[in-house]
C-alpha cells in the first residue's frame, strides 16, 4: 500500500529528525489535479497549436497543411475586422469600467464601509452574462424599452442601441460594465484598505484637499493593485462572447462580430476547426503580448508602499 509505506517512512524520518519525505503520498494527493491539469489544460494547449496547422472538420482526422490557415487569416478581412471590433470593445469596456470602479471604490471607502453597499454593487455580478444580455436587450429595446422611454421623457431622440452599427459596441460594453464593475470596484476597494490611514492624516494636516489626496496618495499607492486589476479585466474582456451571442449574433452586418464569436462561428457554423484554432492562437498571442506590455508599463512589480 502506497499510503502506509509513505507514512511509515515519514514517521521514521521525523524520528531521525531529518527532512521528511512524503513523495508517494504527495503524488497520490496531487494525482487528480495533475490529471485535470494535464488532460484539460496542457494537452489541449499543445493540441490547439497543432490543430492550427491542419485542415480539420471534426469528422475526418486532421490533415497537416502547414501555414495555410495563417496565410488565410492574414488575408481574411473578416478576421481583421473582428480583431478591430474586439480591440474597440476592450478599450471602451476597460476605460469605462476601470474609471467607474475606481470612483465607486473610493466612495465606498470614504462614505460608508458597510457590507450592504458593497453587496448591492456586487449583485449584478451574481447573474450570468446571458441574463444580463437579456435584460438589457429588453430595457434598451428601440420601441418598447424603458431606456428609450426615459430618453424620450428628457427630450432625447430614441437610440437604436443594439441595432445600429455605431451604438452596438458601446452598448455591449455598457452591459458588461454593468455586470462586472462591482467586482472590479471590490478588488480596488481591497487595495484601498491597505493604504494606511496615517498617510491621509498627514495629508489632511498639510491642508490637502480630498481631490489632491486622491491624486497624490491614493492613485500612486494603488498602482500595484490597479495594474493587477487591469491585467485581469483586459484578459477577461478580450474573451467577450456571451453578450454578443445572445444580443446581436455579430450584427448589424459585422459591427459586433468580436473575435471570439467569429472563432465560434467558423468552428461550429462551418466546421473549420483548423482555421478556428489558428485564430485562437492569434488571440492567445495578442493576450500574451498585452499582458506583458501592461506588466511592463504599469511596473506591476514595484510598489510605492514599501
Amino acid at each position: 500500500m502506497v499510503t502506509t509505506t509513505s507514512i511509515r517512512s515519514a514517521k521514521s524520518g521525523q524520528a531521525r529528525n531529518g527532512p521528511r519525505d512524503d513523495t508517494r503520498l504527495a503524488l497520490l494527493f496531487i494525482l487528480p489535479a495533475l490529471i485535470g491539469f494535464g488532460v484539460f489544460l496542457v494537452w489541449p494547449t499543445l493540441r490547439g497549436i497543432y490543430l492550427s496547422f491542419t485542415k480539420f472538420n471534426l469528422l475526418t482526422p486532421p490533415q497537416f497543411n502547414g501555414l495555410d490557415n495563417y496565410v488565410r487569416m492574414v488575408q481574411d478581412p473578416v478576421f481583421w475586422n473582428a480583431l478591430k471590433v474586439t480591440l474597440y470593445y476592450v478599450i471602451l469596456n476597460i476605460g469605462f469600467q476601470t474609471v467607474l470602479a475606481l470612483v465607486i471604490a473610493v466612495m465606498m471607502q470614504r462614505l460608508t464601509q458597510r457590507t450592504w453597499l458593497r453587496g448591492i454593487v456586487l449583485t449584478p455580478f451574481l447573474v450570468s452574462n446571458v441574463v444580463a444580455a437579456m435584460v438589457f436587450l429588453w430595457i434598451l429595446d428601440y420601441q418598447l424599452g424603458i431606456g428609450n422611454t426615459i430618453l424620450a421623457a428628457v427630450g432625447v431622440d430614441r437610440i437604436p442601441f443594439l441595432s445600429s452599427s455605431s451604438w452596438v459596441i458601446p452598448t455591449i460594453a455598457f452591459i458588461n460594465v454593468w455586470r462586472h464593475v462591482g467586482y472590479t470596484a471590490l478588488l480596488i476597494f481591497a487595495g484601498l484598505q491597505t493604504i494606511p490611514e496615517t498617510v491621509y492624516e498627514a495629508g489632511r494636516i498639510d491642508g490637502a484637499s480630498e481631490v489632491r489626496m486622491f491624486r497624490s496618495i491614493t492613485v500612486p499607492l494603488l498602482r500595484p493593485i490597479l495594474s493587477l486589476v487591469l491585467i485581469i479585466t483586459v484578459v477577461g474582456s478580450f474573451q467577450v462572447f456571451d453578450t454578443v451571442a445572445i444580443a446581436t449574433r455579430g450584427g448589424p452586418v459585422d459591427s459586433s462580430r468580436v473575435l471570439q464569436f467569429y472563432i465560434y462561428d467558423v468552428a461550429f457554423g462551418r466546421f473549420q476547426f483548423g482555421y478556428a484554432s489558428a485564430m485562437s492562437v492569434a488571440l492567445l498571442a495578442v493576450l500574451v503580448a498585452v499582458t506583458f506590455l501592461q506588466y511592463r508599463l504599469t511596473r506591476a512589480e514595484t510598489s510605492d508602499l514599501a
Partner: protein
Amino acid sequence: MATDTTPTVATAGPVAVRRDAPPAEPRRLNFGRALAWTFMILVILVSLFPFYWMLRTALSSNNALYAGSGSLLPVQTSAGGFERVFGLQTGQEAIDAGGAGQAINFWRYLFNSVVVSTLITAGQVFFSAMAAYAFARLQWKHREKVFAFFLAGLMIPAIFTLLPNFVLIKQLGLVDTLLGIALPTMFMTPFAVFFLRQFFLGISREVEEAALMDGASKVRVFFRLIIPMSLAPITTLAILTYIASWNEYFWALMVSYTDRSRVLTVALGVFKSQTPQTGPDWSGLMAATLVAALPMLVLFMLFAKRIVNSIGFSGIK
C-alpha cells in the same frame, strides 16, 4: 487560525486587508459628501433597476406591454409569463400571448444546472484541496517546480483550450452529456489550488505535529485537521466556483445539443430564439430570466457577507 474568513483573508491574502484601522470618516455633511452620496445612489439604482424591471415585466401580460411600455408598475398583472416558463400553459395559450408553442422543459434545465454546478464544485474544491495540501504541507522533491508549473496554467486563457477540449470531449463520446460539461473543470483550476494553498500554509505547524505524534497519519491529518480548520476559505471557494459554473455559457453551449444536457443559461438562449422575432414574448423571457437568476441571488443573500469579503482575496482569477 482559519476559523473565520475575515481575519484569515486579512492576513493570508496577497492583498493584506487592514480591518483594524477603519479610516476616520468626516461626518459633517458638506457639498462634496452630498454629491458623493448622489453618485452612489445613482450607482445603486443602476445596479438594482434591471432586477426590478425583470420582475415588473414578468408580471405583466405580454400583449399589454406595447401600450404600457412606460408604466413603472406591471401592466395588466398576470402570471402568464411564469406559467409559460414552467410549462403550465397549453401551446395555443402560449402562442396567443406571443410565446413559443413548444413546451419548455424548465425543471429539466434546472436539474441539469444543479447537477453540473454541483459536480464541478464538489470535484474541483475537493481535488484542489488535496493538491493544495500536498503543495503546502507535504515534503517532496520538486514540489516548488511542479507548483510553479501549475501556476503557469493561470496564464492560459479559457478561450484557447475550449476548441481542443471540445474535440477531446467529442472523442470521449461525452458530447451532450452533463459529465462532458463538467469534466474540464472538475479536477482543478490553477486558481483553486493557489487559493487553498495560501490558507493551508498559514495553519500552524504545532497542531499538525501534535496530531502526528499521537499517531495520526498524514491522510487523517488532512481530513480531520486541515479541512475542518479551513472550512471558511473552502466554503468561500465553493460558493465562488458554484456561481461561476452556474453562469457559464460558452462551454455549455458547445457541448450541449438537446434537452438532455441543456443547462439554464443555454436554455435561456434557446428560449429567446424560439419566441417570435417580430414581437418577442418579453414577459415570458423576463420570467425565464428571473427564474434562471434566482438561485444565485438566493445563494448571495445567504452568504453575502462572506462573498463580499472574499473578493479582495480572489483577485488573481
